[in-house]
């Protein structure tokens, strides 16, 4: 779904493993970035005494490459995007229209048509359709992989395999799905041979089936990542807890719901945030599966696909306004979840 999703998840996994000697709860709580940030900062301050001070200017030197590249390749484009959102600026054929300052006219247009909320809803539905099975199977697999008593034979093989779908280009993946689920495709012919269908089901012209397919593809592509992350988190749990629970006569299911899940909560929240950011950026899969139309009746059109529509006429104004809005939506949703988890942390800490 997204780069963010991809790269952030394993961070936590390693954290967990490495800090497993520490108390389980504090270990888990340190996963959440805000708490983490604070802790790092404070501890750095604490450690930062005489020897380090004179070297500290090197901190700035080491930041230079990041800052310079960031400013040139991301900040300038970002600022110009925001700037553009207040202008009428597009191409009509080979003629440039504008830029004319129009104030918040572009934003108004977005809100008045109201379509943006429909596309937001579509994006969320397709994200949830992929995220639910993703988190369910990841938890299940994670608990199996980290269960020493289960002794799965080919665990190494399975762990390697579940990440593989991520290596296929999203476009190639969608192309395959389009072929497999065509009216005359193999899926329909199998269903008809089995007598489930009497005539081909048109997967691509039914809102539910298109959305489900998109969700399914996202699930297949990303559940490996989530599993690896959650698995590592589970491995970080003190085995003593499980042993104690077993002595108390807990079944494995009870252990899962009473020990594993509560401890994993911070990671789960983190998975939620990264996956959400990735979900909001959903593009390739529905774009290629529906040929860019978001059919039927744009019920599978995502926000970024909508953005892409405005790129056709190089409509910097509308695309800019949409981008800014997308940024705000992402920010708000992330903050809500971050804050939620942050509060939890604080409570946990006080309890200790």
């Amino acid at each position, binding site marked *: 779904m997204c780069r963010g999703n991809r790269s952030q998840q394993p961070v936590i996994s390693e954290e967990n493993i490495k800090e497993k000697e520490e108390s389980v709860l504090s270990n888990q709580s340190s996963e959440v970035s805000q708490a983490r940030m604070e802790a790092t900062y404070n501890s750095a301050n604490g450690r930062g005494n005489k020897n380090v001070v004179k070297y500290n200017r090197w901190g700035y030197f080491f930041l230079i490459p990041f800052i310079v590249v960031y400013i040139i390749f991301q900040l300038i484009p970002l600022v110009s995007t925001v700037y553009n959102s207040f202008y009428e600026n*597009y*191409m*009509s*054929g*080979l*003629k*440039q*229209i504008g830029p004319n300052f129009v104030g918040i006219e572009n934003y108004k247009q977005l809100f008045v*048509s109201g*379509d943006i909320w429909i596309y937001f809803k579509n994006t969320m539905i397709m994200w949830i359709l992929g995220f639910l099975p993703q988190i369910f199977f990841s938890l299940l697999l994670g608990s199996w992989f980290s269960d020493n008593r289960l002794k799965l034979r080919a665990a190494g093989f399975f762990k390697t395999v579940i990440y593989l779908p991520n290596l296929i280009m999203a476009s190639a993946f969608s192309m395959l799905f*389009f*072929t497999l689920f*065509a*009216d*005359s*495709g193999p899926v329909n012919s199998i269903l008809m041979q089995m007598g489930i269908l009497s005539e081909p089901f*048109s997967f691509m*012209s*039914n*809102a539910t089936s298109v959305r489900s397919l998109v969700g399914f593809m996202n699930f297949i592509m990303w559940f490996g990542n989530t599993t690896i992350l959650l698995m590592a988190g589970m491995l970080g749990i003190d085995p003593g807890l499980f042993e104690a629970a077993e002595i108390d006569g807990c079944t494995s299911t009870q252990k899962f719901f009473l020990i594993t899940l509560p401890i994993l909560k911070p990671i789960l929240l983190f998975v939620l945030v990264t996956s959400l950011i990735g979900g909001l950026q959903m593009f390739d899969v529905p774009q290629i599966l529906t*040929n860019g*139309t978001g*059919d*039927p*009746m*744009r019920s599978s059109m995502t926000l970024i696909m909508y953005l892409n*529509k*405005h790129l*056709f*006429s*190089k*409509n910097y104004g*509308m695309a800019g306004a949409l981008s800014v809005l997308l940024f705000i939506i992402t920010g708000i949703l992330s903050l809500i979840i971050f804050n939620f988890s942050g509060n939890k942390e604080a409570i946990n800490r006080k309890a200790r």
Partner: protein
Amino acid sequence: MKKKIVSAFLCTTMVASMLAGCQGAAQQATDAASDTASQATEAVADTAQQAADAATQTADAATQTADAAADTAQQAADAASEALDLSADTGKVLNIYCWNEEFKSRLTDHYPGYEEVDATHGKIGDVDVVWNITPSDDNAYQNNLDEHLLAQADAAEDEKIDLFLVEADYALKYVDTDYTLPVADLGITDADTADQYQYTKDIVTDSNGVLKGVSWQGCPGIMFYNRDIAAEVLGSEEPDDVQEFVKDWATFNETATKIKEAGYNVTSTTNDTYRVYSNNVSSKWVDGNTVHIDENIKKWVDDSKVLVDAKETTTAELWSDDWKKGFYGDVFAYFGPAWLVNFCMADGEEGSVATNGRWGGVVGPQSFFWGGTWICGANGTDNPALVGDIMRQLTCNADIMKDIVEKDDDFANNKTAMAQMAESGYTSRILGGQNPLPMYMEGAEKIDLSNLSEYDQGCNEEFQNAMKNYFDGNAATYEDALELFKKAITEKYPELTVE
């Protein structure tokens, strides 16, 4: 003999390049001299004079050599005059913008003097040919072309676009601007293009009636029908009889019902017939800034809806697996030009209708065309003579055009050449021994494309996409689909409104 011709070409090319080079040097020297005229020393003038003299001498010598070397004096004379023309060009690089390899192979195979250097470079004389190929997916080709055309004025000499290609659907977007040169400015006369089909000229004629591009191919389409189905349902597989069953849309739709009763689909998808309707509109998609839906387009919607509801056709995308299914039977008709049946309909595959030679061709309800590529000269080119010559050779030279037909199976944009081909007794194995050329020629003459607008590409595409929802049902009415079309159009072209 072939070798001889090749060596003659090589010779003439060498001569041409020598001439061009010397003339260029002389020209430069002369320019330099006049520039510094106020403080000109005799020495400079002398040098210029000498250079010019030398050039003339070399030219003379070269012409003599050419005469001696070439097999026929005629060829050499042609080459010499061509070389003189080219010497007016100042550019050393010919930049060609296109979206695939088709034109490159045409130029490589058929333009005298083109030498391939590598995949993206070639040489004509001493001019370097640079191919800028951007795929048309996601509008990437036009985006790239637009960007460079707009920067044309400030571009360095060697970076300027000299020649670019366009497709019919968006030709006017470029043709109706000053970025495209009238072909007359490139030395192409009305006499040169007299043998070309009128519709190929309509597409690239701007709103002032000026011709701004040329094409080497014609793509008139006909209706291909499955002979087995025709024999079974219509009682005859002969083209003349079948044409009676599809002579207009009303009859076509009645026939569709009969075909369905026998268990077949009349067409593979509603999009098959779209082109036929949209080529025969009586008004433009966009007039001023307002989008109109032409009656014939509306008729396509109504007819198609009936066909889909009766399950006589589907709503699959063109080129999709579902669309291709009919290549192996079960679909009565496809609409397309020659290249469709020859290259795309699974000829050579076991069990396909094409392999068995069981397609037939008829004119169908209305004339239409599908495909084609047009050559345009970019304003600001520094090689106008060369661009003009490429256009003339590839689209006006009857010999080369016949060559294209023979080697590449294209339908060439040349009435005389095609008439000769048609009379040569050509028959198509795929079409069960029928000779389709007279039908193509008849179709090409009838196509009327005076109602093009620069927004056709977007309108056609979005209209078909939107109407698919209506055909599919999905609780979408015609009004809903129309609403969707309006939305899509205003996204694509913010300057337009839909009535």
